[in-house]
């Protein structure tokens, strides 16, 4: 019953003991805070850096060059944009040196909306990140995957960007990480730093967690169905799962694919599903213009153009400069539960080519909230 933040913390603990992890660093990453989401509490190799994103990424690159295995944190992805050229250099280091310099480093950063973060704590980053070749990009939507993907990211010989959906960081996962105490309270007592009282000298009592690597590049099917393929990740993934469960009462079923790794893309899983359903909906919350989901749709449309029953669709964030502080503004900016449910119902029920005998029109409901 760990939260995603706890899953990440347990993975970092396992990695500093067993995978050669040398540094976990960034703003507020070390004691006393252990990260603004507490994902780095209690770690031996966690330390606080200057509030300097370029220094964080540059130093991580240098540590990796010298044989270390760092996990660097940018506290919110909203603050990663001034490091883009350094991320590009990290991504092309192996290629530009014709294979002689690899960089085993991980950059973790919280992404997305859902915590009333306003304009500068709600950005998404996957669309920009996927324009930086040489990086693998992962994005878990539950604690088990967060644990396993972090282990895989740290063990990987190449740069890995670990996107943390901040809306899910405190969400609990019913399944247990191997070695995790079954009693949620016991886990909290052992690894959560007390929030009140004198915490001087506090040390976690780590459970004996075992490795459970989630391979990079492997999606997971959260719900299986036949009426449409829904591809998502991060905050919108559990919304799609919930909608699939709800729409079952209407006789609709969906393949809900949790992409988990955004690059490299698990195309075989996507192809297999689309062969079956012939309808595709991609859901994320990044702004819709030049959205990462558009790439998925382009790739799959090129392969399945003559097989698709209806036009593939993207449900994404509105193309506005930021997410406003007031809740109605945030709700109007990024997909909410009702938007997801309606989009899934629409894609599944729209008359298909076979039934219509011609290319179908997109139903008006799809545009209603755009």
């Amino acid at each position, binding site marked *: 019953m760990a939260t995603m933040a706890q899953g990440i913390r347990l993975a970092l603990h396992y990695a500093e003991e067993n995978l050669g992890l040398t540094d976990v660093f960034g703003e507020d990453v070390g004691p006393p805070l252990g990260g603004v989401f507490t994902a780095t509490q209690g770690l031996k190799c966690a330390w606080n850096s200057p509030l300097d994103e370029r220094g964080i*990424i540059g130093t991580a690159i*240098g*540590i*990796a060059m*010298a044989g270390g295995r760092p996990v660097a944190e940018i506290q919110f992805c909203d603050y990663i944009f001034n490091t883009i050229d*350094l991320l590009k250099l990290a991504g092309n280091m192996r*290629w530009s*040196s014709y294979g002689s310099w690899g960089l085993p480093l991980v950059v973790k950063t919280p992404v997305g909306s859902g915590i009333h973060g306003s304009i500068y704590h709600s950005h998404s980053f996957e669309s920009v990140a996927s324009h930086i070749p040489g990086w693998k990009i992962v994005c878990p939507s539950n604690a088990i995957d967060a644990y396993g993907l972090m282990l895989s990211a740290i063990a990987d010989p*190449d740069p890995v960007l670990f996107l943390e959906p901040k809306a899910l960081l405190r969400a609990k996962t019913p399944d247990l990480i191997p070695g995790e105490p079954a009693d949620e309270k016991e886990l909290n007592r052992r690894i959560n730093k007390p929030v009140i009282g004198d915490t001087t000298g506090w040390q976690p009592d780590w459970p004996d967690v075992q490795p459970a690597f989630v391979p990079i590049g492997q999606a997971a099917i959260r719900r299986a169905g036949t009426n449409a393929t829904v591809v998502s990740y991060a905050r919108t993934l559990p919304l799609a799962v919930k909608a699939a469960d709800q729409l079952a009462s209407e006789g609709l079923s969906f393949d809900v694919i949790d992409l988990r790794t955004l690059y490299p893309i698990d195309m075989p899983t996507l192809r297999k599903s689309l062969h079956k359903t012939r309808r595709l909906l991609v859901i994320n919350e990044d702004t819709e213009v030049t959205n990462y989901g558009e790439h998925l749709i382009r790739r799959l449309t090129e392969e399945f153009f003559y097989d698709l029953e209806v036009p593939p669709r993207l449900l994404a964030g509105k193309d506005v400069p930021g997410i406003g502080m007031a809740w109605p503004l945030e709700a109007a900016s990024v997909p909410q539960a009702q938007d997801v449910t309606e989009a899934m119902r629409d894609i599944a029920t729209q008359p298909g080519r076979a039934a219509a005998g011609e290319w179908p029109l997109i139903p008006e409901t799809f545009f209603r909230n755009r």
Partner: protein
Amino acid sequence: MATLDAARKRRIHDLMVKTRLTEETAISMNKKGEGHFWIGGAGEEAFGTCLGLQVNKGQGPDHDFLHLHYRGGPTAIAMGVEPIDHLRQMRATASDPFSGGRQFVEHYAIPEWNIVPVSPTIETQYTMAPGTALVQKRHGGHGITIVTGGDAGAAEGDFHVCLTWASRPGNELPLLIIVTHNRWGISTASSSQWSTTSLNDLATPFGIKNSRVNGNDVEASWDAIAQAMDYVRTERRPYCLQADVSRLYGHSSASGANRIEGEPDCIALFEDQLTAEGIVSRADCDAVWDRWRAQIRSAYDQIHREPYPDGTDIWKHIFAEPVRT
């Protein structure tokens, strides 16, 4: 403090000539259309050679890490880079050992000597150097990190990043921060950008020991580097050294790569000194030039028999293992 004996001076002179002719061959190749772009360190041979010869060369944290900028040719050639490999990268042949024909010339990447990949960005190396230095600080021993950049690169925020991360109280790093000051950033005069000519002074508020040297003077450069290195190696703390150097052929081929009148030529100055000291004669100097001219000509001829990379090569080395997409 003159620490150079006659044999060492002759060795330095030899390497300076070797470097200059390598650079001038690369410039010539660009002008003849045999290489798309030239950039390099012609004019920085005095300081760069003295730096390269004092590097603790090797792989891993026991040895020095070098984060060079794109005028690091004199340093790399003094460390052992051969002209033929430099020219291979200039021509972008498949045999270019540093990048397989992917990078500009003088963009070395040599893991066996801790020379990390050189980037066309003028300043990003200043952000990465604290990382290798941090590993060396923990590792102990005498290995240090050396980062070089120009006065133009020092105007970027990354120079400030380097000073900050190198000097955190209790976490001072064994990092030698070098600014080779040639008074230009492409066509922007340094005098129009900086209110000081001593950029090493920027290190003072960070508590970083610093100094300035005439980078066209071999003996002064050797001693300044030796003193700075000794401090960083033994104290395990940063040091900032500015070397005033010449830019003999302008910024790059983009600005014509023509010889700039009025710039002091460190090799000519050094030859004047060596002959005045009776260490070499003019004939000896000419012989050095002739020997390297012949050898580099041979290298030049060789690389023209070597192929360019195949277009399918672009897919190699994106990741350690090919990935399925």
